[in-house]
């Protein structure tokens, strides 16, 4: 069946089957920022925005997606400070989970600008990282949240 998807601002019509995951379809289209790791909604490496909501694309059916999809590569300048904070706070090493972490964090900071460290920890619980030990990831998000609050 034909399905029209908008990914990182590019609209395209693709042939899909009802069982295809959103992750499979967008990676096949060449959008490789979201990663296929566990493929069963346990690790968060496939996190993308559908509309403004962070979802696990590996357990989302492409056929049900009607709003624009945004991967880490499509976040844009508004989240550059967040990405820089991941770099400055050592929020990644191998970087494989990072596109998912950044997308989840971007959605959190948009939904909850007043997020506390505890809020951040709770929101990021579904994004697994085997390198950092998580403290640096929470640091990066907390620093970004504080800087954005200071700018207001």
């Amino acid at each position, binding site marked *: 069946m034909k399905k029209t998807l908008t990914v990182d601002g590019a609209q395209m019509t693709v042939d899909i089957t009802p069982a295809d995951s959103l992750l499979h379809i967008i990676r096949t289209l060449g959008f490789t920022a*979201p990663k296929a790791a566990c493929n069963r909604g346990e690790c968060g490496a496939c996190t993308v925005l559908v509309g403004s909501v962070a979802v696990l694309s590996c357990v989302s059916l492409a056929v049900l997606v009607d709003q624009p999809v945004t991967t880490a590569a499509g*976040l844009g300048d508004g989240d550059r400070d967040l990405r820089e904070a991941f770099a400055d706070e050592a929020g990644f090493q191998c970087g494989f989970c990072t596109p998912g972490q950044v997308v989840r964090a971007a959605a959190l900071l948009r939904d909850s600008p007043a997020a506390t460290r505890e809020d951040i920890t709770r929101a990021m619980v579904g994004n697994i990282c085997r390198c950092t030990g998580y403290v640096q990831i929470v640091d990066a998000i907390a620093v970004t949240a504080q800087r954005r609050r200071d700018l207001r």
Partner: protein
Amino acid sequence: MSAVGRPVRPLDWDEKTSGTARYAGDVHPEGMLHAKILRSTMASAWIDHVDLRGAREVPDVCAVVDARDLPGARYVHSGGSHSDRTPFAVDRVRFRGQEIAAVAARTPEAAAEALDRIVVQYRRRR
């Protein structure tokens, strides 16, 4: 020496945080095949027979191999405790998950289908 004594961002921070860094799974060179490994479902058993014929008939399957294709092979290159291991189980399996056969195919789906068609005849050890 401008980096000494101050924090420095990783050279690839932009690629890694934006998801444009390329990992093995993001690369699909021309002619790439997909491999899958059939593993023992038994913790300890004799292998009476492994029938690979069904797997070889699956379209897009390029190769199906088991211990018979690697006579005498050992993981000598890895050294230490693995150096006496065979790449595939020979005549018997000694742990659940031991490698029995491997498939290479043009698609992951074909490789999975081929694994399903491999018939392993185990005999329990008494």
